[in-house]
């Protein structure tokens, strides 16, 4: 197991899982913790690593201050500790390179995690499916995988990343500086006629705004996949 900080609030935990059956980009695992008195808490965490890295599996976990599981995973977990995992789970919110595109990814905060698995899978398979990522964070310091996203944009084809910073923007910031809205999606999403496949992941209000906007713009609901996480936060 290795633990790597991503931002002040998020860490990536890489586990070697000898019995792992393999996963698809976008799937998650349930992590269960059991206290000495038998009390159990269980939460879902998205897999950040692509299928190509199995049996190594990376989870990126954001610390929720009053959470039951994430403070342990981000602060107390040590190499050598044992974790109980169930998964991989979910064939609904997944993208395989063979599914093609155009691909539209919309991430709020740590909602980037399963979408990063898709981008890493896309890079690992040398896919040239035209892909746009719209990624909303509070500030530049909160952008998870910032360097890797820059690297992917420079070193893979047909990938564009558009960011919005909702609270604090550095001097000279030229991307968006507000919460996601219909106008932003109109500008960033592919034209309706090109029928992109959309994956939206973030806090519930973020996901609902993004999904409702895409539908209002005329995108087919059946081509819009969503995954919400809680507790409700801002991104």
């Amino acid at each position: 197991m290795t633990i790597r900080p991503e931002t002040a609030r998020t860490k990536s935990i890489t586990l070697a899982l000898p019995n792992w059956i393999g996963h698809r980009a976008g799937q998650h695992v349930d992590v269960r913790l059991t206290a000495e008195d038998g009390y159990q808490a269980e939460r879902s965490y998205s897999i950040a690593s692509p299928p190509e890295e199995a049996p190594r599996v990376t989870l990126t976990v954001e610390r929720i201050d009053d959470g039951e599981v994430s403070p342990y995973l981000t602060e107390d977990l040590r190499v050598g500790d044992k974790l109980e995992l169930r998964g991989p789970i979910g064939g609904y919110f997944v993208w395989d390179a063979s599914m093609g595109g155009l691909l539209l990814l919309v991430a709020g905060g740590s909602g980037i995690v399963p979408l990063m698995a898709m981008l890493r899978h896309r890079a690992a398979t040398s896919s040239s499916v035209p892909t746009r990522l719209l990624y909303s964070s509070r500030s530049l310091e909160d952008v998870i995988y910032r360097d890797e996203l820059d690297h992917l944009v420079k070193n893979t084809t047909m990938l564009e990343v558009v960011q919005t910073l909702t609270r604090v923007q550095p001097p000279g910031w030229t991307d968006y500086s507000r919460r996601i809205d219909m106008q932003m999606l109109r500008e960033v999403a592919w034209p309706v006629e090109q029928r992109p496949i959309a994956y939206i992941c973030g806090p519930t209000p973020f996901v609902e705004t993004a999904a409702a906007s895409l539908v209002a713009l005329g995108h087919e609901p059946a081509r819009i996949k969503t995954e919400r996480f809680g507790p409700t936060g801002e991104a």
Partner: protein
Amino acid sequence: MENKLDGNAAAGALQAILPFDMTLVQATCTGCGATNAIGATAAYMHGMGTIVRCPRCDTVLIRIVHARGRYLLDMRGVRVLQIMEG
């Protein structure tokens, strides 16, 4: 505290009971007749268990409680469950 999530978050608990990829299983609502993949439903998770609701009419489709070593599965809101082979 209750969080509105979606059927993807409920799938782990459902898959502990049923040996299928539950996010892809289609459920038909007894309330309005809408058919949706469980992954596209609304789910509310709290300490007492998980409630899966119809995304169109909000009818309770499924309740799952895991307590004292057993699962309780209340499927009163589901008229038909369509499970793909393989």
